[in-house]
């Protein structure tokens, strides 16, 4: 430890700081209005020092969590934050100033102690709708303006600008379900205030100097563990590439190329050679790309044992993302479906490192945010549904991939069917099951994808979605087989209509919308699989006899 805190105090404050971030997250989920936050937990909370360095964050969505620092930098570049007042806040959703896609609204609240600015509590909520060309992802969007309301980096006064004030009124009139969106923004504010209150209690108890010293020590502690983990990887330059299926307009795959340099206890990451920015919503803003790279490194180094804060990322010397590539597009490209590219960032890093640290990597899982959205303009109000349907997780040296979980960048839960049907009377779920036979065989098999079937109960429903791994199958490693592709199908009048991975489709009453998500790739030669596990999987009909023929 750098400072002279005693062991107990350091332990107590470290856990206390993590507890603050976690309590903020629970508060946000509990008081939110939209299903996407309250049931699916698509949100994140973080606690930063006054310079914007992350002290602690809650375990929610990784793609959000690693990016609070980025968006803070943008605020600090625009405003003199030393003049911020206690009743002010910072808000934005602008992908071109440190945020991610427009649905993710980031809110910072300054934390004052004895009239001095000491920290910021921050929350990010994925909002169910922010206006734009579709009630959900707008697949025809060719610029960020057609994706919805863009909230610039704003410094606002809570009392003046919310309620009847300009900020709230402006947001309200530009979004389809204003009560959900504002309800969720208020939930974010409540979460931030909870963080503020808890931090002040901690300062009262231990004193400012001790708490700040412990926060610094905690960052150093993570840094130490992270550097040890990097040092354990042989020095060298490791490369790999993976692809997003297409941009939704043309059939060409989009390359994510990565070069990772391990040099002692430091890492450099370079995405030179990745595809240029493109038409449609699949570009990934710089902050998202960097956040994905950080998230992949966090898994690689620690697998959850290193506290996640600024220190964990200090060994990453640089992340170079060529400007003008689809991983760092120029304004005003559309970016809603940036998670496709972000997942390939994870995948390419895993693939690159598989040759040197095979036990620390995963095969490709479904690794897509299967954003399933529907909009319906009912006689009473506009209803917007959005859910992330999980798929198979990648396999690893130690275990099979889990069946039906969200991809790397998120950790969204499903929405109970009984809750969904109460909130969205225009649909009924007829099937929600494991997608049998979708796993890639291997010594350790990939996870199974999901199969979900919606019956559409009314006309005028639009299906708005983005997904990936429709064409390029989730790959295995070391002889493991790939998992099955994802697919969306509409069954209408006995006909099967294949839908693209990214699109907006008009649905009719009586349609059956079938969502099948990809399975994970296998790890290791299937012939090395424990025969008992094969028999078990067969007994539960999780694999098909075709798979069995591979292993016998």
């Amino acid at each position, binding site marked *: 430890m750098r400072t002279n805190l*005693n*062991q*107990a*105090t350091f*332990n*107590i404050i*470290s*856990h*206390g700081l993590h507890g603050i971030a976690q*309590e903020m997250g629970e*508060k946000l*989920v*509990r*008081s939110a*209005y939209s*299903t996407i936050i*309250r*049931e699916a937990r698509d949100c994140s909370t973080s606690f930063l020092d006054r310079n914007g360095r992350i002290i602690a964050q809650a*375990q*929610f969505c*990784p793609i959000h969590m690693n990016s609070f620092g980025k968006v803070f930098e943008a605020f600090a570049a625009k405003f003199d934050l030393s003049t911020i007042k206690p009743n002010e806040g910072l808000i934005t959703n602008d992908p071109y100033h440190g945020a991610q896609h427009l649905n993710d609204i980031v809110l910072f609240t300054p934390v004052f102690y004895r009239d001095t600015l000491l920290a910021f509590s921050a929350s990010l909520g994925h909002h169910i709708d922010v206006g734009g060309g579709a009630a959900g992802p707008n697949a025809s969007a060719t610029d960020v303006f057609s994706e919805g309301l863009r909230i610039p980096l704003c410094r606002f006064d809570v009392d003046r600008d919310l309620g009847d004030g300009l900020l709230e009124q402006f947001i309200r009139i530009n979004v389809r379900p204003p*009560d*959900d969106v504002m*309800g969720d923004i208020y939930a974010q504010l*409540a979460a931030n205030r909870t963080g503020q209150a808890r931090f002040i209690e901690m300062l009262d*108890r231990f004193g400012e100097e001790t708490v700040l010293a412990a926060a610094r020590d905690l960052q150093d*502690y993570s840094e*130490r*563990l992270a550097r040890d983990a990097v040092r354990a990887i042989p020095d060298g330059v490791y490369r790999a590439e993976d692809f997003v299926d297409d941009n939704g307009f043309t059939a060409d795959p989009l390359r994510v190329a990565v070069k990772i340099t391990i040099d002692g206890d430091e890492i450099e990451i370079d995405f030179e050679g990745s595809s240029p920015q493109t038409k449609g919503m699949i570009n990934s803003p710089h902050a998202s790309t960097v956040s994905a790279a950080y998230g992949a490194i966090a*898994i690689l180094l620690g*697998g*959850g044992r290193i506290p996640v804060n600024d220190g964990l990322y200090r060994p990453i010397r640089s992340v170079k993302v060529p400007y003008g590539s689809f991983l760092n597009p120029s304004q005003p490209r559309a970016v809603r479906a940036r998670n496709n590219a972000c997942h390939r960032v994870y995948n390419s890093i895993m693939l690159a490192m598989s040759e040197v640290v095979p036990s*620390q*990597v995963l095969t490709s899982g479904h690794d897509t945010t299967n954003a399933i959205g529907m909009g319906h303009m009912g006689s009473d109000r506009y209803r917007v549904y959005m859910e992330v349907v999980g798929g198979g*997780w990648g396999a*690893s040296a*130690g275990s099979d991939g*889990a*069946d*039906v*979980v*969200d991809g790397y960048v998120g*950790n*969204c*839960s*499903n929405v*109970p*069917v*009984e*809750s969904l*049907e109460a909130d969205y009377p225009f649909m009924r*779920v*007829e*099937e*929600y*099951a*494991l997608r049998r036979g979708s796993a890639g065989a291997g010594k350790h098999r990939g996870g199974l994808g999901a199969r979900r079937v919606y019956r559409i109960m009314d006309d005028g429903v639009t299906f708005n979605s983005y997904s990936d791994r429709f064409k390029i199958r989730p790959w295995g490693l070391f002889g493991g087989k790939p998992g099955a592709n994802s697919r969306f199908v509409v069954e209408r009048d006995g006909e099967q209509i294949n839908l693209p991975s990214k699109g907006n489709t008009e649905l009719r009453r009586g349609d059956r919308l079938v969502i099948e998500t990809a399975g994970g790739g296998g790890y290791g030669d299937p012939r090395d699989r424990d025969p008992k596990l094969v028999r078990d999987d067969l007994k*539960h*009909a*999780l694999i098909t006899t075709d798979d069995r023929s591979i292993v016998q």
Partner: protein
Amino acid sequence: MIKMAIEVGGTFTDLIWIEGDHVRSHKLPSTPHDASIGVIDGLSQSLGADLPKLTHLFHGSTVATNAVIERKGCRAAFLATRGFRDLLVLQRQLRPNVYAIACEKPAPLIPLKRSVEVTERTDVSGQAVLSLDEDELCRTIDQLVEKEQPEALAVCLLHSYRNPEHEQTVRRIVNKRYPDLPVVLSSDVLPTFREYERASTTVMAAYLVPLVGRYLRRLEDHLGDRAPGSGLFVMQSSGGVLPSSGSHGRGVEMLNSGPAAGVIGATRMAGLIGDRNVITLDVGGTSADICLIANGVPGITAETEVDGLPVGLPSVDIANIGAGGGSIGWIDEGGMLRVGPRSAGARPGPACYGHGGSAPALTDALVRLGWIRPHRFLGGRMTLHPEKSDQALKTLAEPLGQNIDEMAQAMVDISTAHISQGIRLVSVQRGHDPRDYSLYGYGGMGPMISALSASDLKIRRVVTPPYPGLFSALGLLVADVKRIYRETRFLPVDGESSRIIASTFRRMQREPETEFVKYGYAAADIVYEHALEMRYAGQGFELLATIDLDRLDRDGVTYLREVFGAAHQARYGSTSRAAPIEIVTFRLTAHVPTPSAVLSSLTRMNEKKSEAEIEEGQITFGGGKIPCRFAWRSSLASGSVVKGAAVIEEPTATTFVPPGWMVIVDKTGALILTPES
């Protein structure tokens, strides 16, 4: 006439009984492979020839919880609506740790090969939109029985909380074909929405049916032979007891009932001592259980988990923290000192037990600091080896460059902080200020930590009740006969609400009336409490508000908005004057109160006191040696005052009175600790 309580814990089985004015207790090792053996042995060891005088046996047991954790329940099968048989594997799709490579969901109690489905569908309004295919059901069940020989069948059909008809038809059909196969319906176990949570609870119920049935039958038979006419009552996670006849098929309601019993004991005891707002702190060998009692009523939650699997039944709202006397100190790879959650348990136990444990446990730290005196531990019934504590602590102190005393104090501080964090969880995080509460410490280690934790949280009143080491057993003796009934119906709060609420509760009341009469109570004995789980329309979580039906009748919507608004304000710090409110679940609690005479015999100061036994000595505290008084609890008369630092010893627990605090012995025998100033 003897009333007895037997609480089977993981390590010990505790007995406490009342005959006339006399209260006695006994403790023996539990028999985990068959808990009923320990119970039957305990009965004969404690009562012997007096067994026929037993009139009431109140029983709490970890038998259900252990069966789930160790996966020792029955070969149950699961029947779902067509399209949903994988529900138990799908769960809520969450990864427990977003940074871990391998991600494992909790293993379901029923594997896929015993999960089947049937064509049927009820919609959200309760309409059957697809009728139940009875022929298909028969074929499916026949096949299932032939191939898998299930021992119980859990049925969870979509929206059955709204309309249970299809589930009931399934039961009728299956009963007819397989009269010996128990059929457990989700609409009986937990008629509330969210299918995975309801299915998980139903499956757990089915999983426990044969085991709990066999267990209770064994005890009933034993009592029937030896103490004819006596009644066996079983503790429930809701904090009430039920006659065993009402518990056979409902083992799932026994989960975590031990800690619940302790909370009920504390609630009653607090009523007698005069505390309305209490936080309970039950610390044993491996973990701490914490519960908040507001206004004389313990919190009840419908969201608990056992081994990662959700249980949606209303249970006493207890937070469990991995901190106890056996919690082990260790240094993590980043060089941070940690304590727990791994515990030395009872075997080998802390190093000072001398049973071969070499890792330093919290108890070792307390022995080193002198707060636990080796010759007085468990009233002197067990010899401790302080030199082994020192040895163990040294393995931590040396690599961190600290001395043994510093290390021992650091372990106490870290454990205290864990517990304080747990107290924050049930208080601050839910909108309650701990400073408005008294902290009741019990369990072997609760009274040791309670005042330290109180100092952290600025709590100014700490209580060690009588019998702190037997508190769960004591709680059994004073628990009401009680059951909670729930029903989900999505209803807007509007002009119709008063009428609908009154008639819904009237209808729901028929069930306890029938059930309690079966137990031998008159309908007039039953006391009802009415509550609604509500939310602002659009929110995903409900808040509970107790409803006064007379006020509802008088003030209608205004009253509902007021009580819900208050609950929302307390929990989330905000409330809306205009947002529409939705009723989600009706909750009816029926109970028959226990006679209060039982409690007063438990709190009578037994004998006339001789001279108070107080020794002067020394302990290590906060880095230095300080003088300390050591007092034997039963020698302290009511009204005695001892100033800290002090250690109050008794056979089952030790109360630590830090410097700056003092203790007064209450007329009930409770130790009341307060800061001196």
